């Protein structure tokens, strides 16, 4: 394999990881199997990189499952370590996927799960919390691997006789409690998770909601926003204030998933104020993750039929402007180009809502000249080092992008790299034309999952695709600590 081929394959693998269906692990699995088969070395480094930089949990599950069942012992070793950081439901998924889809569950995977369970048993608080949230998954892990649970695990999971000091015992008490005050006390004292408690309660008063929300993490509040709204939480001022306080906490909580907040807003159909708060969380969380240091332009194809591209562009503009420390320009184009500016006070970063306002009257119509925005930038002598194109690549009007790029490179003495976010289709002759001019191109296919868009950011934050691959290759496969190498009986 030549170095160019190797790079191309690695970039293709990276591209594939951009589009991520949620909770459809089986559909995602071939992507991992193929990446592992095509370039095992890169896959091995991609896994720890993704564990640090990636957003989609399904991918983490699949990385562990595929590494754990690999023929390479160092990959199985890495899986052993990575598995320890998963939630119980994810560990159960790893095991099921390995058995059902890949068709094997090697001894090292069993050993890893045994160690996982043993570690949790050693910390009763952690074990009880896990049992409360994922009792079925834990039972499944013990039973499928025929692992002998410790006394506390046995009592909680299999004998249904939780120790008096465990939250599960409290849950039993909760179901029997007669007054709302008693119920609230039990919830607060035992930090009973929201989803568990609502299953045990017939009627939920505002006082109970306060107790429940107090026991929730910011991520849990976000995840359960639709349910909270359904139970009237947003109609009661005190309860709503508590929710807002949790949302404010979420901005700096590193455990909160970047795009979950937006998802919650969509699913729950919230009032504008709460939705704005959730959007702020998204922006803040994104800002914490990466920094784009190169001057960047985002070109949005607004030609006829590109309505979806306009929506994607708003999201991308918000994501990029939240993390860039360099000049950032946004242009919409059909056969003419014009700059879109978000109005924000000096020194403030535009948020998604600012971009939504800026894009407010942009509509999809007209022919397509992808080069027209770059020609405008050359004329106005605006310097960028990378260009993000949100387009279906179907240009039918001069200036063509490749010609405008050549002219721009000559005028501005720079060779901007091009990142294409393909929306609504692709047109191979377009990319081929760019490659023939020696333009560095990374292409991503957007398949409708806006929650995968933050995965574009780490790539924009890097100087070039070669350096990105180098950085990923710099991530070492993890090794388990010496004391953990013994096998659980």
């Amino acid at each position, binding site marked *: 394999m030549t170095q160019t081929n190797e790079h191309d394959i690695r970039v293709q693998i990276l591209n594939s990881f951009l589009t991520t269906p949620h909770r459809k692990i089986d559909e995602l699995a071939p992507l991992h199997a193929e990446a592992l088969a095509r370039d095992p070395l890169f896959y091995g480094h991609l896994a720890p990189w993704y564990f640090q930089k990636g957003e989609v949990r399904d991918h983490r599950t699949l990385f562990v499952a595929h590494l754990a069942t690999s023929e390479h012992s160092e990959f199985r070793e890495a899986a052993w370590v990575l598995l320890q950081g998963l939630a119980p439901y994810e560990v159960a998924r790893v095991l099921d996927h390995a058995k059902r889809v890949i068709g094997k569950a090697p001894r090292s995977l069993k050993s890893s799960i045994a160690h996982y369970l043993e570690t949790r048993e050693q910390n009763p608080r952690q074990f009880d919390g896990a049992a409360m949230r994922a009792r079925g998954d834990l039972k499944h892990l013990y039973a499928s691997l025929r692992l002998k649970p410790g006394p506390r695990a046995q009592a909680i999971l299999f004998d249904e006789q939780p120790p008096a000091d465990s939250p599960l015992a409290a849950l039993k008490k909760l179901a029997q409690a007669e007054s709302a005050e008693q119920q609230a006390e039990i919830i607060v004292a035992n930090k009973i998770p929201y989803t568990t408690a609502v299953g045990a309660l017939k009627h939920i008063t505002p006082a109970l909601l306060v107790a429940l929300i107090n026991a929730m993490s910011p991520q849990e509040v976000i995840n359960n926003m639709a349910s909270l709204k359904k139970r009237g939480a947003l109609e009661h001022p005190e309860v709503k204030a508590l929710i807002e306080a949790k949302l404010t906490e979420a901005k700096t909580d590193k455990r909160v998933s970047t795009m979950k907040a937006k998802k919650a807003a969509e699913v729950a159909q*919230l009032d*504008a104020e709460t*939705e704005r708060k959730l959007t702020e969380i998204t922006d803040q969380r994104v800002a914490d993750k990466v920094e784009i240091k190169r001057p960047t332009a985002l070109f949005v194809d607004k030609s*006829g039929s590109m309505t979806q591209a306009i929506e994607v562009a708003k999201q991308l503009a918000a994501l990029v402007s939240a993390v860039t420390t360099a000049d950032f320009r946004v242009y919409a184009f059909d056969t003419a180009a014009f700059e879109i500016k978000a109005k924000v006070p000096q020194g403030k970063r535009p948020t998604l809502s600012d971009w939504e306002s800026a894009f*407010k009257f942009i509509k999809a119509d007209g022919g397509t000249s992808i080069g027209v925005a770059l020609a405008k930038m050359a004329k106005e002598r605006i310097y960028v080092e990378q260009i993000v194109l949100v387009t279906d690549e179907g240009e039918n009007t001069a200036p063509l992008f490749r010609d405008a790029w050549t002219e721009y490179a000559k005028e501005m003495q720079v060779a901007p790299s091009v990142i294409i976010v393909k929306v609504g289709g692709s047109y191979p002759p377009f990319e081929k034309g760019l490659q023939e001019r020696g333009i560095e191109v990374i292409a991503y296919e957007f398949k409708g999952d806006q929650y995968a868009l933050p995965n574009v950011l780490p790539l924009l934050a890097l100087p070039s695709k070669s350096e990105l691959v180098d950085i990923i290759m710099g991530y070492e496969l993890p090794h388990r600590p010496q004391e953990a190498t013994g096998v659980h009986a």
Partner: protein
Amino acid sequence: MTMRNEINAVDLAFVVDTTGSMGGLIQAAQDQMITMLGEVTRAANINLWLGMVEYRDHPPQDQMVYKVYPFTADMQEAQKNIRCLKVEGGGDEPEAVLDGITAACRELAWWKHSCRLIILVGDAPPHGTGRHGDAFPQGCPCGETIESVTRLAEEQRITVHALGLTDSVMDAFGAISHLTGGKFFSAKQGNEAIQQIAAILKAEFADIELDRRVLDAWRAHPDIALDNLAEQAQCTRYAASSSMVRLLSRDLIEVPIVS
């Protein structure tokens, strides 16, 4: 013309090659067009108007370049028009494809607010695409090119999907459909084409009630802020914003003139 429902109006035009080479294919093409019509009508709660353009070739290859059948809401009449298509003439392999699309864009009375689709059906590429024996190798006598007709379609907000009945049209029909945001289907994918076009319409009109609410809220207060628009339409900002783009793109919401 009867009053059309502005939210769910669809104008669909078949642009069909009726030259002699279609002889063995026309029956299947007619069947597919009629099936598509039924599927599209059932796909969503839409108000469909159908038009058609048949094209052949420029003299001396053929005496008829194209013929336009105006839009109609009468689906029985539309089906009759499809069934009555007769094939003949054509001469060399390439045909007046670009004339057919141009005529559809310019001569059919597309409604201002409709969702607009062309389904191009044919077995031969346009002139000037490098086919052996092309009587007009320098390009179609009409002076149009693939780029110019796709630009014209995009300017009119028309998406062209293409059903190619032979392999020889794959490149040209693929480009025509792609450059307008449409899809290309080969003859073997006839059923898929029908399903996909139905799915495209379903997606387009999936949020019809939301669009209606956003439009009502907008019309009541054209200077409404996005937050308030979302609140009045009982949806999220994101949904309201997406709906706005759809409504703007179909000129159901006018862009205010900034002085």
